[in-house]
């Protein structure tokens, strides 16, 4: 009789554990295979439940100990033992408490002790957490206050901490919403900062537009985009990181559309409006684009995702921006490129020189698809055509597809996005440039990151394969003193100082004439040249390098050359490279000293030309009217203030170069706080 009680218990126990494991494994297996299939064939998205802990705990069933055969008891105890181990190991997957992970009981999110941001004057006080001694404070750090406060730019937009998203133009003001960390000079606690400008150059800071205060964005109010609806309404779609650390898309709109300052924003009560679809990880779904109108009258929004290592652009369709349908066809995907962040999708005219509204399509229009690659922190783009019927974007040149071809900028530049400025009919591009110095230095100086000067984007009609980026014309209003150098002859090995006065804020336009015949006559030169690996400006070749040296001291101990280098491949084709060399930009050892650059198309009959904007620790360089652009960060210790100089140079061995340079000193822009007490908000 006892057996009949024990054996069922035993059976049930072993059975249920096994069955529960079976179920567990099979449900995982089933859901995985469903997910992968769903991605390609998704027809609609339901608001699937946010991911929950899906691990089953094997039920523990109490057992009564009864005398049974010896063998059975051995088996039983071994089984019990192994099941216990299984139980312990299976316990998993709460949204983990970070304190456990760290194991030292510290709170997960520390509030970083805030230090004064020193506004436009740069560092206004030394941060000195570690009061070892009050004496010798001035000589403690290798980075002196003078060096650090010099780094702050004069005419670039920068709040204390800076990532960017959602730019738009409304009622006479350009609005810039940027990712901001109120607590530290590192990424974190992301909030929407807000600034406005009449001219894209002089900015007024406004209060935060959005803060992480809802469960669906409590862990970060991340990037988003604004869409201007036909009736004039503005909708903002943005990524929120939820309290469960899931990336979702939320809707927000201005509280008062007739407020030109757009001070207050309302978050749609039904947020989130989009959650990660089946097959997409909860942390691979972010940065919705500006919407465009489809011929069927519905709006479309694109979002970058990834599946394994394939970067993909998904497209959703909506009429009211609160409910969405995931389109069957993905817009585009490129294997091996990883997660696509900050996807940007916009038309350019192949015939006109003005920008186009995001919804434009048709003849004389190409579409740019751009993505920031998580993998290598670079912004890539490609030109192609968009078919609204199939929702497919096809690159003009698949070998230069998104993520494997052209970059918007070959330097320190990321998370850029464009918008259509309807007032001036321009497509404008904003980019974020982070620091390339150490975090300790950022903490000392009290800020990190700048915004590049907004760039106007047009299709390069001459090459047909590029876009052109050029600093907005408004930056020219900062030009003050002008110094011209005409036809300076630079023989091999030349170095010519340019007497321009204070050389820390400059706008330089330079053209270079070379003896093309000499290049044509050569069979090959510097085969396999590469800006990054070929040794920088001190590496001399037959036909390069030559160009400008900026942010350099008299002795050129510190220098930042920006130059052209012509190399000829074994096929006899000459390629022009455009490089910016930070390898000797500073004697400090804890800053990045890479050499950035790429080839730049130079058409027959064109002179080599470059434009360089120098603004303290940021240098933006444009070749051939903006075909190739490089943004650099430099942190000299000597070439600062009046010690900074600018030179022309020619380190080529085989050709002379004739240079003409136009240099403007640049006034500083005004960055202040908008006088809100004088502003009537209604």
């Amino acid at each position: 009789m006892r057996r009949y009680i024990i054996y069922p218990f035993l059976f049930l126990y072993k059975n249920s554990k096994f069955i529960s494991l079976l179920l567990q494994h099979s449900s995982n297996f089933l859901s995985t295979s469903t997910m992968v299939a769903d991605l390609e064939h998704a027809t609609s998205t339901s608001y699937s439940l946010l991911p929950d802990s899906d691990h089953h705990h094997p039920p523990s069933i109490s057992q009564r100990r009864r005398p049974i055969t010896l063998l059975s008891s051995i088996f039983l105890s071994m089984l019990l033992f192994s099941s216990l181990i299984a139980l312990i190991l299976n316990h998993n997957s709460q949204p983990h408490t970070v304190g456990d992970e760290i194991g030292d009981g510290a709170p997960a999110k520390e509030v970083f002790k805030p230090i004064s941001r020193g506004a436009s004057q740069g560092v206004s006080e030394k941060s000195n957490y570690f009061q070892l001694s009050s004496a010798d404070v001035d000589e403690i750090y290798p980075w002196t206050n003078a060096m650090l406060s010099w780094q702050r730019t004069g005419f670039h937009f920068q709040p204390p901490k800076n990532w960017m998203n959602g730019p738009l133009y409304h009622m006479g003001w350009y609005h810039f919403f940027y990712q901001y960390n109120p607590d530290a000079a590192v990424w974190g606690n992301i909030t929407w900062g807000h600034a406005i400008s009449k001219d894209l150059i002089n900015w007024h800071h406004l209060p935060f537009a959005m803060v992480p205060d809802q469960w669906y964005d409590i862990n970060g109010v991340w990037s988003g985009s604004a869409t201007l609806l036909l009736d004039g309404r503005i909708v903002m779609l943005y990524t929120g990181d939820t309290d469960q650390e899931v990336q979702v898309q939320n809707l927000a709109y201005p509280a008062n559309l007739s407020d030109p300052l757009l001070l207050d924003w309302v978050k749609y009560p039904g947020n989130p409006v989009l959650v990660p679809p089946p097959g997409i990880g909860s942390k691979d779904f972010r940065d919705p684009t500006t919407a465009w109108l489809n011929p069927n009258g519905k709006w479309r929004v694109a979002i970058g995702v990834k599946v394994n290592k394939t970067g993909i652009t998904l497209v959703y369709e909506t009429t009211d921006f609160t409910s969405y349908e995931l389109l069957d066809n993905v817009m585009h995907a490129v294997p091996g490129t990883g997660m696509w962040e900050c996807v940007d999708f916009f038309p350019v005219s192949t015939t006109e020189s003005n920008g186009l509204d995001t919804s434009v399509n048709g003849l004389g229009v190409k579409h740019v698809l751009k993505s920031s690659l998580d993998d290598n922190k670079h912004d890539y783009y490609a030109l192609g055509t968009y078919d609204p019927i199939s929702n497919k974007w096809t690159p003009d040149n698949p070998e230069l597809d998104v993520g494997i071809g052209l970059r918007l900028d070959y330097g320190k530049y990321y998370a850029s996005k464009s918008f259509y400025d309807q007032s001036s009919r321009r497509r404008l591009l904003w980019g974020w440039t982070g620091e390339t110095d150490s975090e300790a230095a950022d903490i000392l100086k009290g800020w990190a990151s700048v915004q590049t000067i907004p760039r106007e984007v047009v299709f390069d009609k001459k090459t047909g394969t590029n876009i052109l980026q050029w600093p907005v014309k408004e930056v020219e209003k900062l030009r003050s003193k002008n110094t011209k150098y005409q036809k300076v002859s630079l023989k091999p090995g030349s170095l010519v100082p340019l007497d321009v006065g204070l050389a820390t804020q400059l706008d330089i336009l330079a053209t270079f004439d070379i003896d093309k015949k000499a290049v044509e006559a050569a069979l090959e030169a510097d085969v396999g040249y590469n800006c990054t690996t070929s040794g920088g400006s001190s590496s001399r070749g037959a036909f390069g390098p030559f160009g400008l040296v900026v942010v350099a001291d008299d002795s050129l101990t510190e220098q930042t050359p920006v130059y052209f280098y012509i190399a000829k491949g074994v096929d006899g084709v000459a390629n022009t490279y455009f490089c910016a060399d930070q390898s000797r930009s500073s004697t400090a050892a804890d800053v990045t000293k890479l050499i950035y650059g790429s080839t730049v198309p130079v058409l027959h009959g064109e002179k080599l030309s470059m434009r360089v904007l120098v603004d303290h620790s940021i240098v933006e360089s444009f070749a051939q009217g903006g075909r190739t652009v490089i943004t650099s960060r430099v942190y000299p210790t000597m070439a600062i203030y009046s010690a900074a100089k600018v030179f022309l140079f020619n380190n080529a061995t085989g050709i002379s170069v004739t240079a003409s340079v136009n240099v403007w000193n640049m006034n500083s822009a005004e960055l202040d706080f908008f006088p809100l007490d004088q502003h009537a908000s209604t």
Partner: protein
Amino acid sequence: MTLPLGKANLNLKGYQFNMKFFSLLLIFLFLGLFEAPLMVMGDRKLIESTCKATPSYNLCLSTLLSNPKSLSGDVSDLGLIMVGATRIKATQAVQHIKSLYRSHPELRRPLNECAQMYLAVVKADVPSAIQALDGGQPKFAEDGMADTAVEAQACERSFSDGGHKSPVTEMNKGVENIANVARAIIRMLL
């Protein structure tokens, strides 16, 4: 009497009962026995393969295995454990520097610099990396760990720059190594 086992009807005849039971018992037992160690091996395999892709396999392995949560974690969890270990090492560095400050007054300048650098790690780099890993923005976590290695190297250099011999070479190397391991793990999430 039938048991709720679907088709496996069992009667009360002793011998038949025993044989069926016993063989079924054996099957389930073997499965039970094997599946527990398999579970252990499976997660350990993840740890081993993750560590193989880092610059310091042994350091990675010992650090992860010393934290019981590592056996049930995914790569992101392993990254978090490693970031936590980096933080511990950096915090210890700050303490060590403090103690040296009293005993080596001639080294106050570089020690001050080092303190600043390690405080940047503890106060900024690590919290940022944790928040970034939690939220699914691994590249910012990578930035944090990359900077940690930079700070450790800069600390070491601050002695030689002043013509001194560094009393904390091993300490700095320790931080640099563990930060590089953390960075390598984080890169797998990109």
